[in-house]
């Protein structure tokens, strides 16, 4: 059994230690907001916060997540400025990558309340969106910036 703290709640899962955290979150614990896209850490769909930092959950063996605070899209407050900005700017199209985009953006704004365009672009470089919502993501991050978000 492996113990995990996700969204402030303790979970105990019966899985092998090498199973990627992503699959434990999604399929074992049914927190399906976190998505599978590539499995090699190149698309960002599986982004969660591990001790406040944006990480690719497909690249973390579940055993390495023990003792860490994990936050998924479900654990980000409903009134979090990034979630609200995503709605205000009407970012999503198909929506599949957006949980990962939001988690990445929330971590960025937690570290830098008012990032430059260049900083935003650098921070979001690992998150793919096949629908091409990037211009809206940029707008939403700017709109959420400086509004005191915490992860």
């Amino acid at each position: 059994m492996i113990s995990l703290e996700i969204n402030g709640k303790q979970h105990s899962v019966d899985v092998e230690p090498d199973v990627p955290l992503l699959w434990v979150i999604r399929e074992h614990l049914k927190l399906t907001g976190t998505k599978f896209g590539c499995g090699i850490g190149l698309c960002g769909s599986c982004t969660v916060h591990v001790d406040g930092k944006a990480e690719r959950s497909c690249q973390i063996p579940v055993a390495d997540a023990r003792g860490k605070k994990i936050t998924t899209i479900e654990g980000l407050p409903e009134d979090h400025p990034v979630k609200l900005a995503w709605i205000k700017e009407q970012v999503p199209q198909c929506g599949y990558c957006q949980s990962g985009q939001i988690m990445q953006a929330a971590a960025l704004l937690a570290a830098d309340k008012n990032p430059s365009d260049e900083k935003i672009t650098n921070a979001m470089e690992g998150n793919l969106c096949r629908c091409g919502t990037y211009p809206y993501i940029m707008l939403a991050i700017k709109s959420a910036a400086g509004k005191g978000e915490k992860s």
Partner: protein
Amino acid sequence: MKTSITRREFLQKSLAGAGIAIAVSITPYGTKLLSAEEAAKEGPDFSPNVWLTITPDDIVHVIVNKSEMGQGVYTSLPMIVADELDADWKQVRMTEALAADKYKDPIWGRQSTGGSTTIRHMYKPLRIAGAAARQMLISAAADTWKVPESECEAYRGTVRHIVTKRSLTFGKLTEKAASIPVPKSPALKSEDKFDLISSPVERLDVPDKSRGKAMFGIDTFVEGMQYAAIARPPAYGAKPLSFDKDAAMKVRTVSHAVPMPTGIAVCAGTPEGAWKGRDALDVKWDKGIEPDLDTVSLEKSFMADLAKEGITARNDGDVKAVLGAAPKKIEATYVLPYLSHATMEPMNCTADVRRGSCEIWVPTQNQTGVLELAEKETGLKPDQIKVHTTYLGGGFGRRFEIDVVEEAVKISKATGRPIKLIWKREEDMQHDFYRPANVSRIEGAVDEKGRMTAWSHKIVCPSIFSRVFPGQVKDGIDPAAVEGVRNMEYEVPNLRVEYVRIDTPVPVGFWRSVGSSHNGFTVESFVDEAAHAAGKDPVEFRLGLLKNHLRAYRVLETVAEKAGWAKPLQKAQGKGVAQHMSFGSYIAQVAEVSVDKKDGLIKVHRVVCAVDCGPIVNPAIITAQMRGAVVMGLSAALKEAIAFAKGGVESSNFDNYPLLRMADVPAIEVHIIKSKDEMGGIGEPGLPPIAPAVANAVFNVSGIRVRRLPMKPETVLAAMKKM
């Protein structure tokens, strides 16, 4: 916002007097409106394509028969109903339709989503449905107040008596309205009375999608389900020589190993169990049907086929004679690669096949295809099969295919368990139905006055339709292979279009904007080359060929004006233009680029897009679709190409099939032209012009014609060194 209401529940609710319901039936004789009661009596032959119901709690439920893959139909279709109904938008909910004859697209006679047709096909039936319900609610209110109907009007979810200012909400009128006969031909609103249509209404799916709550296919859970993974052949047509079933069965939670037509499936209680079990199979494959197939051999075959005589798809005037006598002749060969859809949600399907029932949850663009497949695989009747359409994590044509459904149904049937089948990214990329590669040779002639007098266009391209809709291949011509060329807007007196069909083991399918995704590039690159040969400005030259094609003319003129075409750009920047009509919409784009002389890297700074799609429903969605299509088209133009090796696909994931990322995205301005012309589509037509606009801009700044996609830095650099 979505609610869960099945058609049966809906009928029960409606028939119990708890609400009114309208079905629109498209018959060979026209549109027919029926109440829920009449609809129930119609029996199995009744085929309404859309439903709306109003319940006593004032909620308007719209059942949507089209798939939501990002293009906004879960919002735009309810908008149409709500506007005609004069509903309060806050009280409108949508429910996705199950797969059933009742929900077939009235034009196609199939329930599926594609070809940028959703609004075009559903606009009229939905307006009629909304208008009929409005008229019934007004009748019910007039009857309640004992006043003439002409003194009553519907307004945002209520009916008002204009004189006395009394009002009743829709919910309070449902019981009485349900007993009123459905009007045979309800009056539609005049367009100046639209409240929602043509407004940038916020999308109904955005809140859930911004909170991680939208349920995609991959998010399906069914009691007792097993996970499946499939070991697939690395080369086309390869068969297994051996595999270690015992080793797979020893992996934790593995329950079955099932040989399938497409590989060997392993089922387990957990996803990791299924994948480990699959790897443990250690399948040895034979070399497949064409072991020497690779990127180079494929391109050689295409090039060789350029020498073949094709089938003539269009032949105006005498191209041969005019080309032969032309004072100025131009010639170019263009090469475009196979492309992957790369939807962010990999292919997946959950199926539960039992004795006497089958239930499927799938992100699909093709409900009718799924239903027919399930009937064939299970031997069950359509009413024993339930097909749930989830949200689609991208579609782009890939989800018109039902290969993953066939696998899930077969595995569930073989194991007797509900099965969730998830493809890994590598499977998704290597077992796609690709956007066809295309090699085209074009010859043209320009006369002394700089007029285009001849255009000869030979297309070597695989056929999508011969597999998907063979009935639409007429005289050997695949309509997708020649679209955008055979019907080009330019008026050239001598025009010949020739199609050489090439068959390879690589399966091809619909990919956003289909044939226009490659033909738009060749036509718009070549017309630019012709403009240069004629010594004319690229916009002016095109306008000269469009004098009788007013929509194309206007959209090009608009984009030139909005982009400031006549004004000089910053130093070391170039501009390029392209226009293309597809799916009934006219789009023109101007791209501003620079090219790094050191490494050949193309940077796109700004894209201006003008669109004429006729009457519009939601301008915010149109703008988003244009921007998205520009990004996807730019990704293909600059980055994407499927590589082949050893008889199969070599590209496997985003490391060797890169997509465009945020840093490469330009500023994209969209200008929607007010147009009363025929309505066009919006999901696809924004894509074709961007690649040629960028290539033409690269020429403008560097003098290099890029005739091969993607426009890789090394290709540009090599060309620059040759200059």
